[in-house]
């Protein structure tokens, strides 16, 4: 390793890899984040890519990015602004210039800055650095394309394959910037291209040459030093929100002793859950890729009737299509987990971008009085926890549960400390008792009000259920007025009683604060970081973050009424604030809303909170 002329010590750093959607930036970012995690940093990542698979080359709409935030302290978000930007073309530079931290470092492939690419990116002059007002930054103008070609010229690869290795050159250089080992990435390359020795050799050579290039240019390039984090002992792996969701469901299947069934239809950004569970035949998962969203949920309802732990996964437009069937599961009182990975809407909206605008749809988007439990995950890795608890609640309370995650959580990753499943609660399956002389399909557990699960194949429990209202005492079809009133009330009461088994709302931060920040779901990382930094700076502020939406935690009202000033922050137009007002008309709330397909930034949150505190 060469001597480093200038080393910047940092607690945490944000790196963004950005290029054309075909440049391999997602893989580059993923490999970098793995290496950082294994090195011992806490990390949080977020990919940001266009919905087109290969949008027009060289244009801003075709820019694909992957951001990694890592530090030697805990990190809760992928970071707002970046310290290091790797831009593989002018469009990537143009799209990300506004996200640079003052004094940051830009690695730019200068080979890509020809006239054609500059115009495509919308630059008017031939100097994108000046035009993007980045002159005062550390600019590493690296001829990455030329250097990659040079590196591989004797390997016997075709030009296309050579150009495809550019990302590994850039990655090598970034590893030098952060003084990180190449081992993990080399291992990955060897495994991934196990049958193509030439490709393995080429990629490893380019990676090493990229790293060595850092030594050559070290005189004018700063490098960064970030110590490992103080991390709880244990075994770790990197996990994305979508995989965490899939795994939470697998864990629930094992803990309940039920077979897992997923009926689903591919939809961005939920598809990875379907893919992950499709690969889990080793654990006996039955996955049914249906002809549409409706068949996705209906096959799951059938599987639930037959006694499986049944799940359907989707995003907003799919949840809309599933609405009628969710109502069927509500009235039939069958357990079902509906995962909605929210994205920007309405309609097709912003398929690859994040939003929290399906809250009201989850709560009320069905005909009739149709209560379902609604829970929301708040970090990529706690998608595992809430998928597990969604399944537990569905089975134990015999009712559909909607789990809300979002595009930000789904694609973001964090290191996950492997759980000891013996420490996780069992899931009790409320099987109907064949020896119970008084059994009927709507006989209920008197505490929870849930009915019992009598599955086909069991002698003596033959019965019929369906979408028509049923008599509360016999399960026969009933159009009786008072019976309907009671059944509607029972179904609502059953869901409300879940408040008896979920945790109370926790207050984070200053108990004596007079301003309370309220959030729910995927915004936790940004809200917590903003509040935490403000407390460190001496402000009196606290955070209450919701994971259980319906029913709300029992202490919600009591906690909220303690605060004079409440600001509800959401990535929608104020749906949770409305819901709180509806439940607690005496609680006054202010709102801070954002609907740009992007997460909050810590910076904008702090600015807003500071203005509020001054009012």
């Amino acid at each position, binding site marked *: 390793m060469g001597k480093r002329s200038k080393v910047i010590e940092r607690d945490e750093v944000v790196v963004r890899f950005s290029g054309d959607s075909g440049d391999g930036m997602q893989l580059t970012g993923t490999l970098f984040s793995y290496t950082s995690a*294994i090195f011992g940093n806490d990390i949080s990542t977020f990919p940001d890519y266009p919905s087109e698979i290969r949008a027009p080359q060289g244009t801003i709409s075709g820019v694909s990015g992957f951001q990694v935030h890592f530090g030697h302290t805990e990190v809760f978000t992928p970071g707002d602004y970046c310290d290091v930007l790797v831009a593989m073309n002018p469009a990537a530079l143009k799209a990300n210039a506004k996200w640079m931290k003052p004094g940051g470092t830009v690695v730019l492939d200068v080979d890509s800055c020809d006239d054609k690419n500059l115009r495509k990116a919308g630059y008017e002059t031939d100097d994108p650095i000046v035009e993007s007002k980045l002159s005062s930054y550390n600019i590493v103008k690296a001829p990455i394309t030329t250097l990659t070609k040079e590196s591989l010229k004797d390997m016997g690869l075709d030009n296309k394959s050579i150009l495809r290795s550019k990302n590994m050159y850039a990655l090598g250089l970034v590893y030098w910037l952060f003084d990180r080992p190449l081992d993990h990435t080399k291992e990955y390359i060897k495994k991934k291209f196990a049958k193509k020795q030439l490709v393995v050799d080429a990629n490893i050579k380019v990676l090493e040459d990229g790293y060595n290039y850092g030594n050559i240019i070290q005189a004018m390039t700063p490098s960064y030093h970030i110590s490992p984090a103080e991390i709880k002992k244990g075994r770790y792996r990197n996990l994305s929100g979508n995989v965490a969701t899939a*795994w939470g469901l697998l864990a629930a299947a094992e803990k309940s002793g039920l077979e897992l069934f997923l009926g689903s239809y591919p939809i961005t950004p939920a598809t990875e859950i379907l893919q992950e569970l499709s690969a889990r035949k080793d654990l006996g998962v039955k996955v049914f890729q249906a002809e549409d969203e409706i068949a996705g949920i209906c096959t799951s309802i059938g*599987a639930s009737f037959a006694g499986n732990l*049944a799940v359907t996964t989707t995003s907003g437009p799919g949840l809309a299509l599933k609405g*009628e069937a969710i109502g*069927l599961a509500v009235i039939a009182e069958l357990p079902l987990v509906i995962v909605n990975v929210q994205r920007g809407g309405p309609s097709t909206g912003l398929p690859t971008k994040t939003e929290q605008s399906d809250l009201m749809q989850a709560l009320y988007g069905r005909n009739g009085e149709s209560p379902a439990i609604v829970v929301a995950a708040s970090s990529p890795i706690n998608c595992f926890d809430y998928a597990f608890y969604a399944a537990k609640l569905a089975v134990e309370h015999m009712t559909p549960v909607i789990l809300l995650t979002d595009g930000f959580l789904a694609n973001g990753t964090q290191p996950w400390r492997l759980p000891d499943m013996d420490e996780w609660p069992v899931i009790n399956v409320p099987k109907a008792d064949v020896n119970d002389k008084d059994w009927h399909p709507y006989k209920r557990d008197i505490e929870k009000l849930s009915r019992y699960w009598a599955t086909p194949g069991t002698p003596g*429990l*033959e019965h*019929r259920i369906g979408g028509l209202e049923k008599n509360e005492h016999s399960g026969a079809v009933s159009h009786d007025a008072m019976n309907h009133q009671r059944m509607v009330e029972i179904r609502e009461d059953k869901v409300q009683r879940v408040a008896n088994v979920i945790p109370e709302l926790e207050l984070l931060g200053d108990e004596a604060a007079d301003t309370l920040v309220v959030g729910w779901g995927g915004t936790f990382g940004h809200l917590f970081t903003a509040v935490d930094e403000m407390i460190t700076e001496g402000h009196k502020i606290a955070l209450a973050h919701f994971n259980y939406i319906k029913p709300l935690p029992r202490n919600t009202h009591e906690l909220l009424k303690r605060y004079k000033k409440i600001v509800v922050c959401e990535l929608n137009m104020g749906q949770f604030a409305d819901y709180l007002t509806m439940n607690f008309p005496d609680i006054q709330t202010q709102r801070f809303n954002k609907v740009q397909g992007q997460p909050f930034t810590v910076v904008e949150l702090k600015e807003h909170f500071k203005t509020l505190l001054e009012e």
Partner: protein
Amino acid sequence: MKFTDFKSDQSVKWCPGCGDHAILNSVQKAMASLGYKKEEVAVISGIGCSSRFPYYMETYGFHTIHGRGLAVASGVKVANPRLQVWQITGDGDALAIGGNHFIHGIRRNIDLNVILFNNQIYGLTKGQYSPTSKRGFISKTSPFGTVESPFRPAELCIGARGHFFARCIDTDIKHSVGVLEEAALHKGTSIVEMLQNCVIYNDKTHNAITDKAHSQDRTIKLEHGKPMLFGKERNKGLVLDGLQLKVVTLGENGVTESDILVHDAHCEDISMHLKLADMEYPDYPVALGVIRSVKAPVYDQCVEEQLAAVQEKANIKSFNDLINAGDVWDVK
């Protein structure tokens, strides 16, 4: 099991004279004859008059939502392949709102027994035309006649790569029982189209062929391996004239029984099955019985086999194995 063991305690609420009563009888008789146990049967329906069917069966039953019965039934069967899953649907339920599930269910070839009650009308909503109503049909929503052509369920079934298609007349219980048993024993999706009479909104719609006085002359009951003969005197038959079917009479123009086509329900090629299924009165007799019955891989069995094959070789046997596999690191 007696067929009456399959009757539930609910009073049957179809209109007096409705064809559904006879079909209910046929299904219960077929189940008794097949030796089914009540608990191993799941009857799944969508919405419509026919879809009240599960309530009248002393088995497991699920009355679901409009058009989605086949999707729910698919989930039931894949979740528990040991069940006998019957799916009750109508021409509106299966071919209009549920058309997508109908064709994809058939394409997958899940082992389901589907009975399609075809009365060419929406009965439960009181008389609107359906996807099988004839062109020009007058109804409450087509007071001047429809300007659209109907589906032929057999064409949809075979077009969706279906492997079993049969047709019956609702009131012909003896014939229906036999066909339903064959459908039940067939591994894969079986479609039985029941020509059903809606006594209130579309009475006698099938009468030209179902009326006892003419039925034998205007329909042909196909049986695998038997010559395609029909008529009161069993003296009419079908032959191939070029690429078309043709009705001939034994003894006329030197036609003998050896000239008559023999029905091959097991033939993979769909051409003859389509021709038979498409025959319409008055040019041809309407084909009844099992028109097509061909062996093919069965989805739910394939799912089980694939799971078993993967699990046999898998290194991951538990959730704990899964989370410890691949890229993990230890913090000490």
